[in-house]
């Protein structure tokens, strides 16, 4: 039915575009009927901006009356075609879409699709004649917020309130997520800049205190020698810390080069890098045949290197024996690095992955508590998990997973 309803984007406000319909819009509802404002904003009734997908003026009037009687100060625009609808949602802000399910040229569910394409989160409530349960369920599945039968319009205000509450929750959640992501990015940026820019002055401190030590050792007094030694030691330690922090922040900043990676080769590189530590610690590293995985090879080297390096460092009374293995579990490869070292107390098995967390004094074990947090970051960036099972004095088994993926085409 072509009627004098919205002729296009220009015929926006129903109060002007629908001259046949009386008192639509902001005319206050009788006090007694009002169930109170739908959304409180400074105590005043909040305006409800509605976009209706409807071609029947009488239905428009009924719907608006139902809302008005419930205390909504309502303004409404009308769209009868997909084009009108798209133009309107692009141009104006709406709180809710009330859509008839069946119009001659399109159906209300198409508005859900339009909103999705436009990236708009506006709840769509289907206001329709008999819909049939199956259709209704299908519409909700496809993204409609609710449906209200035209002969049960009394339900509409509550449906609107609920849809708007849910939208607000979604919006809050999205904002919280965005805020979290932004703050993580900022933190990473800060870590990067700080560690990068700290390196330069630190280099001056380290080299010149070393020069002092070299040139004036034994020429001042014994206190001076000791103080210079403290300064050199502190500078070198801070240098290592800054470098590790930089490595940590780089894991997120630099993209991953995901490709089919032979983890046997990865392990060999890690062992080569650890050659001195393995030799000095008298460590034996055994490994089974390891799979090819889709991963960033150099990052995976870091994971193995840190895990095996730790296994050597935290050895027990026996020379370290480390076993590296892998198996399929569900849709993941589960890698394990088992050692016979000092183990970790149960209360600390989660702490070990926290950045800067050290469980021992510097006199007992060197290190700055970044290694395992780098492992965690790398593994999680690959879509996997990392955890440890351990008994004090009986060694630890570190596990990490890498999802099984199709090999990307070269």
């Amino acid at each position, binding site marked *: 039915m072509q009627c004098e309803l919205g002729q296009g984007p220009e015929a926006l406000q129903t109060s002007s575009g629908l001259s046949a319909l009386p008192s639509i819009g902001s005319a206050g509802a009788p006090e007694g009927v009002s169930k109170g404002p739908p959304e409180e904003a400074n105590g005043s009734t909040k305006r409800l901006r509605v976009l209706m997908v409807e071609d029947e003026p009488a239905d428009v009037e009924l719907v608006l009356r139902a809302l008005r009687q419930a205390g909504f100060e309502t303004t409404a625009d009308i769209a009868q075609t997909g084009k009108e609808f798209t133009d309107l949602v692009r141009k104006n802000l709406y709180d809710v879409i009330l859509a008839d399910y069946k119009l001659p040229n399109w159906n209300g569910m198409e508005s859900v699709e339009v909103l999705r394409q436009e990236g708009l989160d506006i709840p769509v409530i289907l206001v329709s004649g008999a819909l049939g349960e199956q259709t209704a369920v299908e519409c909700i599945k496809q993204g409609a917020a609710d449906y209200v039968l035209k002969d049960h319009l009394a339900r509409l205000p509550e449906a609107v309130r609920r849809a708007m509450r849910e939208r607000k929750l979604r919006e809050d959640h999205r904002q919280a997520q965005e805020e979290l992501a932004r703050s993580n990015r900022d933190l990473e940026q800060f870590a990067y800049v700080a560690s990068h820019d700290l390196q330069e002055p630190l280099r001056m401190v380290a*080299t010149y205190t070393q020069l002092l030590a070299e040139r004036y050792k034994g020429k001042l007094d014994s206190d001076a020698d000791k103080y210079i030694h403290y300064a050199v030691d502190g500078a*070198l330690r801070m*240098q290592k810390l800054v470098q590790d922090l930089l490595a940590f922040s780089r894991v997120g900043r630099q993209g991953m080069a995901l490709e089919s990676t032979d983890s046997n080769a990865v392990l060999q590189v890690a062992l080569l890098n650890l050659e001195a530590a393995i030799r000095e610690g008298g460590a034996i590293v055994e490994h089974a045949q390891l799979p090819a995985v889709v991963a960033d090879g150099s990052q995976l080297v870091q994971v193995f290197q840190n895990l095996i390096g730790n296994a050597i460092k935290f050895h027990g009374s026996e020379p370290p024996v480390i076993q590296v293995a892998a198996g399929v579990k569900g849709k993941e490869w589960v890698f394990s690095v088992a050692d016979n070292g000092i183990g970790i107390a149960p209360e600390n098995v989660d702490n070990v992955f926290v950045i800067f967390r050290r469980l021992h004094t510097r006199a007992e074990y060197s290190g700055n508590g970044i290694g395992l947090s780098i492992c965690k970051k790398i593994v999680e960036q690959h879509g996997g998990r990392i955890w440890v099972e351990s008994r004090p004095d009986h060694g630890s088994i570190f596990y990490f997973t890498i999802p099984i993926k199709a090999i990307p085409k070269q």
Partner: protein
Amino acid sequence: MKTQPEILMVDDNPADIDLTSEVLAQSKAHFHVNAVNDGVEAISFLRRLGKYAQAPVPDLVVLDLNLPHIDGCEVLSNIKSDPALARIPVVIFTTSQADSDISRSYKLGANCYLRKPGNLPEFVAVVQSMAEFWLGFAILPQKEKR
């Protein structure tokens, strides 16, 4: 008689110039280090402009990348595009480890790219081997008479 090798060091950090000079002063060969603090000075030195009219032709340029006014890459491209200067080996000596800096430097004709080490033993080793290699072992084109 063999003349004393001339090094031009371009660096805005006086601590690095001092340290490098210290290290070179301890080596057996007697290097002479000429130091300038920015890119404009470096180009004036190389082209013997203004107060550098009597400057020696360097046998080696040790060039930092991050310089005020004219950065190291521009100095480098100036040297390598000038037929009179292009034969002088240029060693980039910087804290930057960025791939972009490394590849850009070599593209512009840097003869070598070295990172400034963060501790003294490595710093000494790097500066000594750099000087030994470029001013000792490397065979370079003859200086043109000027």
